[in-house]
């Protein structure tokens, strides 16, 4: 049996819908991972010990265990303690928190690298520690960390394929659906790959724009 791409157009609507879900889950999880990353970084650096210690444990849990396992735990495991999340929400939370922990590591280093004269100048004007952090230190730290966070976000896009296992009909699962009907795995996996590649290109272009904008103030 040779390759036959003529079956692809018939399932294009399924694939396109899958691609839209992939984009949606990536945007939602990336947003969560960005703001979650900032919050985690502030907690890791400045929260009192009783908050910081359990937090370190959770961070370790998210960095030290497979994302796949975390998704299973959030989607199938939490039901047992009465938390029944829709698959999409479970996927966003799993992906988002997982990458938030990675982003937090980057942002922590970046916060510590902001010149301490910046905090001094802000405090001298009368800003509180929190205000100085929010208005002066974090914006600079985030600006410096846009390129590596961008790399994390591209990893996030690719890892979003994992949420197919908890039943979110994103791009990978949609391809599998089409394969189930046509028995043409090569064709549809290639199509899915092309879509991932296109989304990836768009993301990189977007990131470059953000980078240019944030670097303008240097």
């Amino acid at each position, binding site marked *: 049996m040779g390759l036959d791409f003529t079956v692809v157009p018939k399932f294009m609507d399924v694939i396109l819908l899958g691609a839209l879900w992939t984009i949606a889950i990536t945007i939602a999880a990336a947003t969560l991972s960005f703001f979650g990353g900032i919050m985690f970084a502030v907690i890791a650096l400045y929260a009192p010990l009783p908050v910081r210690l359990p937090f370190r444990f959770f961070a370790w849990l998210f960095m030290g265990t497979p994302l796949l396992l975390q998704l299973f735990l959030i989607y199938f495991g939490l039901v047992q303690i009465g938390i029944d999340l829709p698959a999409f929400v479970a996927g966003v939370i799993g992906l988002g928190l997982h990458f938030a922990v990675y982003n937090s590591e980057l942002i922590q280093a970046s916060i510590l690298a902001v*010149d301490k*004269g*910046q905090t*001094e*100048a*802000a*405090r*001298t*004007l*009368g*800003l*509180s*520690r929190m*205000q100085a952090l929010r*208005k*002066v230190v974090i*914006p*600079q730290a985030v*600006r410096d960390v846009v390129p590596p966070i961008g790399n994390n976000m591209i990893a996030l896009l690719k890892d979003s394929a994992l949420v197919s296992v908890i039943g979110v009909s994103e791009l990978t699962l949609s391809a599998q659906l089409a394969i189930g009907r046509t028995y043409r795995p090569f064709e549809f996996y290639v199509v899915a790959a092309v879509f991932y590649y296109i989304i990836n290109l768009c993301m990189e272009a977007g990131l470059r724009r953000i980078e240019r904008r944030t670097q*303008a*103030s*240097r």
Partner: protein
Amino acid sequence: MTDQKPFVDIRNAQKSYGSLEVLKDISLQVQRGQIVAIIGPSGSGKSTLLRAINDLDPLTGGEVWLEDMQINRKLPHRQYEAHINQVRQDIGMVFQHFNLFPHLSVRGNITLAPRLLKHLSEAEANALAEEQLEKVGMLDRIDYFPSRLSGGQKQRVAIARALAMKPKVMLFDEATSALDPELVDEVNQVMKKLAEEHMTMIIVTHEMGFAESVCDRVLFMDQGVVVEEGPPEVIFRDPQNERTRNFLRKHLEGSNR
């Protein structure tokens, strides 16, 4: 001096890092509108003393008063934070390395604190920024980012930023030391203008000429003590203390090289 109550009053300031004593029982009274220069070799404790006034470097002993308020009074942590944030609004500070916020425009640098702490509207804050920038001659750069300014321009913006909080006293920590020689004067001119407006100023400086022409009083510090103090014409023309004489001689040789 007069028998008037001092405006800034440092009483028996002590500061030590472990066994290293940086400030050894220093007292300094500054009257309203007075301009005091602190000179001395590096490591003499002059910056530490200045930074103790707004509690950037907290003292380990002694008191700092601004008018009728003790700045470094003992309070529980949270109350102290609220207290010191309030006090610092009244004390402007200018740093050697400017410390402008690089992610904000000149306008943003100046309006940040007034908007956040005094709850000015955008229009009020803008008017304030324009007024202060006009004073330091930087109004035409209001929408520039700090990275596009020269050192002297940065420092003038930093002064405008401090003035926008309408401080009662201004502290200058070697404000011209990081500048190229040809840029020093524009900053000195701004400081002179403030002096003419009777701003109370405490200035840590290496610019002896400037200290002599602008200041009412000069303190010479060395190894954590005030060795000699007096009017500039006495300190610079006829210093009584051997250490003062040595310092000034070395400094003059250094700057003529």
